[in-house]
């Protein structure tokens, strides 16, 4: 399998008012084309920091980050990001929010009509055709997050980067979106890297779960292969022994090996 992202010996530190602060150290991780990877760890350990590094929003203090064999020097449309708080522009309609991304990626090559068709297709993919002319403040949190996903998918990225995309949603909406996301990923064959703090979500959606140790100076503690067959059925998995084992392994890492000091 082809490696699409290579993270080699990456350390990330910040100079803050309280001095030099190492967030991540010696992170090594290869992500293979088409796989789904979850980053899990206690709050504040550096999950977002790692995702932002892959996105190119920040540069590592040391080490090398490669995408498709080339060094990551900044953000790029082949690495679409779904932000934790959707980050839709409130003054644009859902349609225009997606169109902004479509224009940027395909604007030079395609006609106006083609761009609009792409935008509609992306919104249809997340089931939001009916809301395309609404503004973000007129739709629910789950719908906003879907528009965020549609915007990311509309760019036809090689990698979909998601920072706790469903963290702010209620359990039912979250389950629906997880199911939809699995379908979309199966259909588009996209690579996905997702930050989550939800153990079930990590197991359900991922081929591998990357567990980070506690910060400061967090690094990868364990990587768990999730061998569950696809397509995965939420209900069937609820009683699946293998699912339970994966779950237990992650819980053990989080709550025994990386006990969080009571905050």
């Amino acid at each position, binding site marked *: 399998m082809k490696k699409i992202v290579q993270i080699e010996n990456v350390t990330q530190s910040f100079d803050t008012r309280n001095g030099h602060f190492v967030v991540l150290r010696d992170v090594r991780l290869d992500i293979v084309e088409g796989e789904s990877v979850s980053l899990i760890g206690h709050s504040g350990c550096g999950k977002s920091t790692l995702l932002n590094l892959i*996105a190119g*929003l920040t540069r590592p203090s040391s080490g090398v980050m490669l995408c498709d064999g080339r060094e990551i020097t*900044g*953000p*790029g*449309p082949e*690495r*679409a*990001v779904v*932000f934790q*708080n959707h*980050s*839709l*522009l*409130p*003054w*644009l309609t859902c349609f225009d929010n997606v169109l*902004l*991304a479509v224009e*940027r990626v395909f604007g030079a090559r395609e006609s106006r009509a083609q761009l609009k068709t792409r935008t509609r297709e992306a919104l249809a993919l997340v089931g939001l055709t009916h809301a395309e002319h609404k*503004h*973000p*403040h*007129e739709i629910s949190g789950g719908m*906003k997050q879907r528009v965020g996903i549609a915007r990311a998918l509309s*760019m036809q990225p090689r990698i979909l980067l998601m920072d706790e995309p469903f963290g702010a949603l209620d359990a039912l909406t979250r389950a629906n979106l997880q199911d939809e996301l699995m379908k979309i990923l199966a259909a588009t064959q996209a690579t996905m890297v997702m930050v989550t703090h939800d153990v079930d979500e990590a197991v359900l959606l991922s081929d591998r779960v990357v567990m980070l140790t506690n910060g400061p100076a967090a690094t990868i503690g364990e990587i768990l292969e999730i061998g569950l067959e696809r397509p995965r059925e939420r209900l069937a998995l609820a009683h699946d022994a293998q699912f339970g084992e994966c779950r237990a392994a992650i819980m053990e890492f989080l709550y025994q090996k990386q006990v969080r000091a009571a905050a």
Partner: protein
Amino acid sequence: MSAAVAVTMERVDDQGREARGAGSAPAAPEAGPDEEVGMNAKAAQADKGAIRRRGAGWLRALARVALPPVLGMGLLIGLWHLATLNGGGIPSPGKTWDAAVVLFSDPFYQEGPNDQGIGWNVLESLKRVGIGFGIAALVGIPAGFLLGRFALLAQMLNPLISLLRPVSPLAWLPIGLLVFQRADPAAIWTIFICSIWPMILNTAQGVTRVPQDYLNVARVLKLSEWKVFTKILFPAVLPYMLTGIRLSIGTAWLVIVAAEMLTGGVGIGFWVWDEWNNLKVEHIIIAIFVIGVVGLILEQVLMLVARRFSYGNS
């Protein structure tokens, strides 16, 4: 918002009516001077009956919104009336109302450069405010963007702005007179000075407050500078800009009256001064109302615009 405007307009209307009512002694607004006080209460009762018959809930809601301000205005006019009962320099509400009727029957007469209708005076003042304010916007808003975008520039200019902002704009009037040699541009200059600070500061604050998330979106999409400006920076800063504009126009309207008193010419400020010299105190009181109403309208229009450009709370 439009409801608020309607209420305001209504208040203005009621003000007029109440003033007239109080003027023709205690008589109902629409009644002649020889009719009785009781008419008021009767009319009110008849009104209430009509409302109940129609069962229109919104009318009652309107009354609930409009009644307290009307009562407040009535109280003011009542006190004013009491205060002027035993003579003195202040004209009674009735005398003022009569003067207003004469004044507003021909607001746009023109008899030489120093004797023009109150309409012309207000328009002339508004024109000065518009020009001074417009130039301030043209300079202040881009300046605000620059200040918000470049920290060094902000560090250079912020102490200067802090120093100059608390200075009364009128202190700048002599400089304007010196530079422009004429009263009109000097007054405009004063308006410019007082309008520019809120616009610079609010725009700059808006730029520094553009959420990092939006800028990250721009970076991930690799938007061009132009797109970043038109699709993200400008819309994000717009509400702050409009606050700046609203603050400036409020101050500008305060300042123009004072500036015109000093510079002379046509304008509501100078008109007030002129009427003082003519000892027409009722005209001064009318001018105070007119200035208040125009200021209120300016404020409400800008609130309306601001409301149009505020996007939920996402």
